């Protein structure tokens, strides 16, 4: 059970990072940063 949890957390971290990278790229392609800059 424990290694199941570790696998999940590791995969989650990997996917989350990947998604944030995609977010940042797509926002910058539209001339914006990921974090709001008023």
């Amino acid at each position, binding site marked *: 059970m424990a290694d*199941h949890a570790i*696998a*999940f*957390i*590791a*995969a*989650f971290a*990997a*996917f*989350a990072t*990947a*998604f*944030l990278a*995609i*977010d940042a790229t*797509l*926002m910058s392609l*539209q001339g*914006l940063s990921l974090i*709001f800059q*008023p």
Partner: protein
Amino acid sequence: MLAVIRCALLTILAAVMAMAIALAATHASASAQQAQQTEDASAAPPAGGEARPYVPPPDLTRADYPRIGGLNGRVVVWLAAQMHLWFAAFILAVPIFVLIIEAVGMATRERRYDDLAYEFIKISIAAYSLTAILGGFLLFCLLIFYPHLTSYLAAIFKDAMFFYALLFFLESATLYVYYYGWHWLQGGVRKWVHLTVGLVLNAVGTTLMFLANAWLTFMMSPAGLDQSGVFQGDVWAAIHNHLWNPINLHRFIANIAFGGSIVGAYAAFRFLSATRAEERAHYDWMGYTANFIAISALLPLPFAGYWLAAEIYAYSQQMGITLMGGIFGWLFIIQAVLIGTLFLAANYYLWCAMGRSDGAERYNRYVKYLAAVLVGAFLVWFTPHTMVLTNEELKMLGGPYHKVLGPLGIMPAKNVAVNVMILFTVLSFLIYRRANKIAQVSWKKAGNAAQAALFSAGLSNILFLGIYHGYFTNTVYKVASSVPQVVTTLVVIAASLVIDALMYKGARQVAPLRWGRVPERAQYALFLLPVAFTWLMGLMGYIRSGIRQHWHVTGIVRDNSADAFTPTLGEAANVVSVGAILFMGMVIFVFWLGHVGTARTALADSTVGSAA
């Protein structure tokens, strides 16, 4: 040898048609360029008999709208157009998935796919002539009730319209060869010829739709005109107006979803009236396949719709705001109810269908959570923002928006909701597929962890984008963040399908799927889908046309008829409902014909017997 020659001839024919289309398009723009090089384009007609068309917009008065007896021309044209569109969508969709299923049959060498593809086209064959009849009826009604607008549009699009008319010869030829030649063109090269014919049929049908889309999008977002509204001669500019491609894409995808759901209803009905187990199994499988087609096309549809709305805003802010923030805003709440119905029905079918798998019990307990999330997302999806309130209600509420639920009414919340609904539908599908299998790969625990992480990370990202950018930044960021949201959903769908495919390679089946073992209520989900799709299409058709309000061609040709007013939502919904009922009646007639065409009475058999 003969077959190879036939094949080559058909390919050459297709190539020639393609070249003809390309030539027609470039010719139109080349002649327009020439025309534009000759002096400036103001309202003066060309002198000295030049070929440049001079098409000034007509200035219509109430007297320019003919009447027949007690008929309301506006409602007649509305219904004619909508009926034609419903049928046209259907007959464009069927060849698409028939071709794909035929190809799948060729690739897997499983006879059942070829038979299924043939059955789909057989039951819908009568729809083609009905589409043509309705198209002709529509054209007559336009000529009768809106003659000046129709001749104005015909003057602009004459080349394209003539080409459109000619294309029907090719459409009929390919359709009849494809259908009637199904069993003749079997085996080896002949089958490839048959597939090519199907491909050409699809290409022609798509071209026909693109051409027709040009006319109605021109009416919404005219192009190729000068400042005073005079056509400049470049028909390609008029075709390629602002909304042309968004409508092309949206309709192409929506047709597939719509067509799939209609044949699914056919299968559902045959399932219910089946007497033998093999019949039930066959129609259960047919219904499942049709539903699969419909849902696969439904998933990307919200994004195509979003693009269309975005382009409407880009063309005219006023039109965009009237569409979603003004008098048509409430229509989108009705739309939300319809779309929620579609997603819930599709998922409900999948959950019921899990009963086919002996191994499904282990997944049954998840269904209630899926249902809860979907219902929750649907409720968010359909929460309005700005409400129409009386003064007392305004005071009680303390403003035009509900304090707590109001924020759920704006676009970011809706984007989150729809992405969640799409992802959870995919999740239902994955669970359905797994229900019957036991993975044999060594890394299946890691694989499951990966899937869980993929979905969790994807949903977290969607929520982050929706909440942070939706509520803590400005409009520019809000709109821009919908792009990574969409991409997240698409990535999760693609990645999860890949992971599952790999995980279940060589998987052991718990037992073969028991086609036919599905409760009757699941079939009613298959009826709900096309009814909702049909009604939704009618509603959206009304919005698309109504957004022009009192203009035939926005800003160019004003509607000065007695019926120029925009009806209330209830009135519009009633017309759509009448049309939907008429359409469903006609579809039942089409299916009945497809079925009765193969039925024989005892007398017919005995006559044949005695003649033999």
